[in-house]
């Protein structure tokens, strides 16, 4: 898989910009799947598939916001596990 060099603008610029990290995105997707009690193997496989789609989307973009990243990842996750996608999208709007 080609490496992605996009920068992620965090919390609308309130926190320092970071380079995109595939492992971080994968970990957050695995956590969302595990939160709805998916087996670990299924969670990791879903996270990998969703990550692939997000990286395809990222390839033409030098800069994205963490909000957009979460939105796109959530949309792809919905196709695999709607409950996990719901929790993933709700994470920032629970409190």
């Amino acid at each position: 898989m080609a490496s992605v060099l996009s920068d992620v603008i965090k919390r609308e610029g309130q926190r320092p910009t970071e380079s995109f990290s595939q492992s971080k995105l994968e970990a957050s997707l695995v956590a969302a799947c595990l939160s709805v009690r998916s087996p670990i193997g299924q969670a990791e496989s879903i996270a990998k598939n969703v990550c692939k789609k997000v990286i395809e989307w990222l390839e033409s973009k030098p800069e994205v916001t963490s909000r957009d990243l979460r939105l796109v990842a959530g949309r792809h996750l919905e196709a695999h596990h709607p409950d996990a996608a719901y929790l993933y999208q709700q994470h920032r709007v629970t409190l």
Partner: protein
Amino acid sequence: MDIPTSLAIVAFAALLHASFQLSVSVLTLLSSHSIGSKRPLKNLLSLTTSFVIGAAVMTLLLLSFVALVVISVYETEVPLVVWAVACGLLSGVGIAVWIFYYRREQGTSLWLPRGTARFLSDRTKATTHPAEAFSLGLTSVIAELLFIIAPLLVSALVLVELPALWQLIGIAVYTVIASLSLIIVWVLIGSGHALSGIQKWRESNKRFLQFAAGSGLLILGIFVYVSKVLSTAVGGM
């Protein structure tokens, strides 16, 4: 006011306290992080149990503290003007709940300033030890003080006029009922229910909860005003 009426007021005030959702939101997030980070079920249970105990302890301490302040200032004869202020506070908070308890956006975002919400969210994510979860429970109740102060104050005013034993019973009743929503979520999480189901229920019923809590506060304010302030003032003429 007789003992059954006093206890009914305390129980209703506690029910309104239970309808506020900040602690439930934090408990949902705490469980989500704990399950998502592959920690064993035992760890999830110890964190959520400590959180619920922390929130219950802070509720008990706050009610006892407010009652102590009332007793220290007025002893057991609270002036009618204080009752009237408490009723006004209930009505004001009721209207505030109607207007801005939930933000007008997707999810269950509350009125909290975004910085505070982020702080609580980050603290929740960093919580791995039961002692931290206990403190988080304490903090989540304090963070909601702006809204729970009205039911707490009215309960304290009612409680200080009761005999000592009934005061203790009243405090216990308030604490248990005010913690009911947390206890229900704790039982659901512990028994393996999906967090997404709990969060979906909360999101789809948030407007009803908001309306019910606001209306309940107004009704309690009017009831206490009529049964305590008006009846005493008119009876005393």
